[in-house]
Structure formats: C-alpha cells, structure tokens
C-alpha cells in the first residue's frame, strides 16, 4: 500500500458528480415512472454516489488488495442478511399452511 496522493481536480470532479447526482435524484423523484422504477432509479443513483465516495474520497481505488477484500466481505455478508431474510418474507403465502 504505497502512499498515493489524489490530485485536487479528481476530488473536485467527484464533488461535482455527487452534487449532480443529488439534483438528479430529487428531480426523478417527482416524476411518476411505471412499476417500481422510481425506487430503482433512486437506488441506482445512490449506489453510484456511494461508489464514487468509496473509490475516490476513501481512496479505495488506490488501496491495497486487503482493503478491497475487507470491503467486499462487508458487502457479501450484507447480501446474505438481505437474501436470507427475503427468502423468508417473499415466499410466505406461496403454500397454504395447514
């Protein structure tokens, strides 16, 4: 993990992208999209914003493999938490309980 100094223009670019994402998500929220697309759009923008923060503000893009593994493990276990819980809730009522 060698020291890496991220140039100011990268930080400024990320900052502007985050602000643009915030504006976009507020605008999109007032549009009535079909099905669940309002939620899909809002979460997609949020995930993009979070990824920008993690990669550039938190320097993960320039970090060692170990940091990547630690972060990936967090997301993996979070996915387990959601997947197992929803495998319960979504399948309730599929079969009559006698």
């Amino acid at each position: 993990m060698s020291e890496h100094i991220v140039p100011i223009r990268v930080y400024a670019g990320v900052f502007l992208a985050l602000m643009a994402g915030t504006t976009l998500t507020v605008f999109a929220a007032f549009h009535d999209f079909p099905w669940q697309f309002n939620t899909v759009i809002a979460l997609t923008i949020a995930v993009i914003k979070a990824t920008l923060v993690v990669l550039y503000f938190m320097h993960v893009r320039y970090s060692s493999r170990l940091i990547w593994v630690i972060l990936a493990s967090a997301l993996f276990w979070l996915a387990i938490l959601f997947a197992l819980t929803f495998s319960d809730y979504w399948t309730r009522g599929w079969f009559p309980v006698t």
Partner: protein
Amino acid sequence: MEQQRAAGTIGMWVFLVTEIMFFGGMFLAYTLYRNAYPAAFASASNHLDITLGAVNTAVLIFSSFTMAMAVYCTQVGKRQMQILSLILTIILGLTFLGIKTVEYSDKYRDSLIPGKLIPGRPFNPDLHTFHLLPGASIRNVEMFYWIYFAMTGMHALHMIIGVGLLTVLLIGSVRRRYSPEYYNPVEITGLYWHFVDIVWIFLFPLLYLLGRHLAHGG
C-alpha cells in the same frame, strides 16, 4: 512507519465493516416494513421536508469534499489549508446537525414523534392536515416514524461523534502534530466521515423521496 499507517487504515476499515452491518440491519427493517405498508410509508415520507433534506445532502457532500481536502493538504504539507479545511468540515457538520434539529422540532410541533417517547406528546398527527394516501393506516405511518427517528437519530449520533473527532484533529493540526510523514489520524477520521456521508446518501432518497411521485393525483 508505512506498516503502521497501513495497520491503522485497515483497523478503521474493519470498524467500518461492523458499522455497515449495524446500519444494514436498520436498512433491512426499513425495506421489510416499506414492502408491507407501501402506502403508509409514502404518505409519511411525503410529510418530511424535502428542501431541508436536499440541502442537508448537499451540506454533507460538501463536508466530505472539505474532509478529503484536509487529508490532501496534510499529505502535501499545506498546514494553513489543512486547518481551514478542518474548520470548514466542522462548520458544515454542525450545519447539518442544526438543520436536523429544525426538522426534529417540526416533527415535535406536529406530534409526529412515535409512541410516547416524549412525555405528554404522544404520536397524534392532525388528520385534517396529514394527507393519507389510499390504503394507508395511521398506525403504519407511525411505524415509518419509528424507523425514521431510529435511522436519522443513529446517523446524527455518528455525526456528533465525527464532529468531536474533527475537533481533536483541529487541535492536533494547530499544535503541528500532523505532517506528510504522519497523517494517519487525519486519513482514518476522513474514512469515518465519508462513511457517515454514504449512510446519508442512502437515507435521503429512501426516507424523503419514496412517495413524491404519488403526492399529486397518482
């Protein structure tokens, strides 16, 4: 020195993993209840102040930028700019908390604090002004506010801790404790601050924006 720096950063990341799991549990509770009571959640969400929420999002993103600048200025040894960035980050953090206080006091005024958390001020919204979407029950609106206060409250607590950490950094900077050779405290406090920012990046659309498209007609 390099190994020490790496160890400190990894330690902070492992702590952030536990934080992800902690907030993840609350996001899970939110998702389940929102799935169960979509109309009530949309009605309750529409009652939140979208302007204050959006301004707070911008404030927090700006504070993340100034925090990143503080790390940068420490790395390149620009001490004046480092102190200025830290002061700006603290001011922006306090601004966020101030706006949050305004929002919370609005909820108090409208009797929207769930349950009987505040003595003599139980959850009791004025149903003449509180617009309920079709199919929404006021009990499930109350559920939204439990989750709203739990999540934004824990987030605000993290912000308060963050401002405390930044104050320690500021004192350290004034005392010339950090340099391009030793900037790990600034770096890992930055990681924590950015994490708190990320939590808000998800909280803002999920809590404030979820029912806006249903507000008029819809």
